[in-house]
């Protein structure tokens, strides 16, 4: 059940320094660009960010990185922003690298009350270091722990006023998972419609997961990130 906010700073009002924040998107695709922009204008620091990437150099979460507001990042592919590696070498940021499927599954587990799970992915590799390995029916698996966050900021296509969400093409990615795995879930959307306008069969994120809604003001277009007219 969602509250609709007009201003991004109102939507972000309970975000505090030191929190863990999940951020949807695969690079800029499906990223909550308005809410990320709001974070760059907010006086918070020491954040732990759970997101597949840290944006690109100076774009999206890449701005938060430059602002040194990120203490730690948990993701699968930081290569898309070469400044992450620099910051890591300088000791400015902690990184936890997970295979993309493990990242997605760990977030889903966090949202579903699953404490951890055994995956085949990563067994025998550098990313298995420090993780418990266990045979199940003769096959080796790694134990991976669930991930949860204080806040999730996500991007969807349409919401109804209750907070039900549908997504758009490959902008779906991590967003429906993160919607389940945080204490406070804030979604930015293209459009907010009345309950009943979204088919009950096509709703991807039922409203019980969503706390706050905001209409997107920054959107990804063919020409890059622009302010919506």
């Amino acid at each position, binding site marked *: 059940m969602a509250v609709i906010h007009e201003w991004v700073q109102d939507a972000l009002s309970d975000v505090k320094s030191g929190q863990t924040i999940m951020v949807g998107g695969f*690079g800029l695709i499906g990223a909550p660009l308005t809410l990320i922009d709001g974070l760059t204008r907010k006086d918070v620091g020491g954040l732990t960010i759970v997101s597949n990437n840290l944006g690109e150099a100076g774009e999206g979460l890449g701005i938060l990185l430059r602002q040194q507001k990120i203490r730690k990042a948990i993701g699968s592919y*930081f290569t898309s922003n070469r400044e*992450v*590696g620099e910051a890591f070498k300088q000791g400015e940021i902690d990184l936890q690298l*997970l*295979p993309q499927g493990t990242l997605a599954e760990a977030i889903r587990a966090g949202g579903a009350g699953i404490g951890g799970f055994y995956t*085949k992915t990563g*067994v025998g590799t550098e990313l298995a270091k420090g993780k418990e390995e266990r045979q199940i029916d003769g096959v080796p698996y790694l134990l991976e722990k669930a991930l949860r966050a204080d806040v999730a900021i996500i991007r969807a296509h349409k919401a109804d006023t209750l907070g039900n969400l549908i997504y758009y093409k490959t902008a779906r990615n991590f967003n429906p998972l993160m919607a389940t795995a945080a204490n406070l879930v804030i979604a930015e959307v293209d459009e907010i419609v009345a309950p009943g306008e979204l088919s009950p069969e096509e709703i991807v994120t039922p409203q019980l997961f969503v706390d706050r809604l905001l209409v997107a003001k920054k959107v990804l277009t063919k020409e890059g990130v622009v302010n919506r007219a």
Partner: protein
Amino acid sequence: MSIVHEMIAKRAAAELQGPCVVNLGIGIPTLVANYIEDDVVHFHTENGLLGVTEVGEVDPNLVNAGKLPVGEKAGAAFFNSAESFGMIRGGHVDVAILGVLQVDENGRIANWAIPGRNIIGVGGAMDLLVGAKKVIVTTTHTTKDGKSKLLKECTFPITSTRSVDMVITDLAVFDVVEERLILKELMPEVTLEEVRRRTEAHFIVGGLLDEHPVT
């Protein structure tokens, strides 16, 4: 992409016969789709789409794992990242075609990290290695400075303890059988001698070596 890359991609495409679900990695693998006309080959991209086709009108929110614009064909489906990797890890993807940095002589690959470089990313590589029923590697045979990418042992961190099934380079095609590289084909105008000279890894010459399979 160069003619060499196109040749490798074309050879890989020849492996995709009949109904199958195929995941294409970034780089040379992406080119493979250009050589597939068979309607029963369905491309999966791990960022959440089954039924990838060539891009029509560019939509910034319709991309592949390399974040390049793609199209969706009739009968395509979108899904979230956990569902997508459930497909991969759960063994529902028939073939993965991947680029590599290195291959060792047991057919294990390294394709996600270079120590000392600011490359801190693994993406879906490890999931594809453990989950895809068949893994085909496409790569130039040597690095830009002429060093073999087929090594006795990978010097970069490996992606999985699982060996791939086939290695396709600009010089040759290798099957991996019981963790050994079996030279299966030579690319046009390539001699066995040249492959030997430019390959550090030990390999076995297959019994029915075909020197000119691609025409």
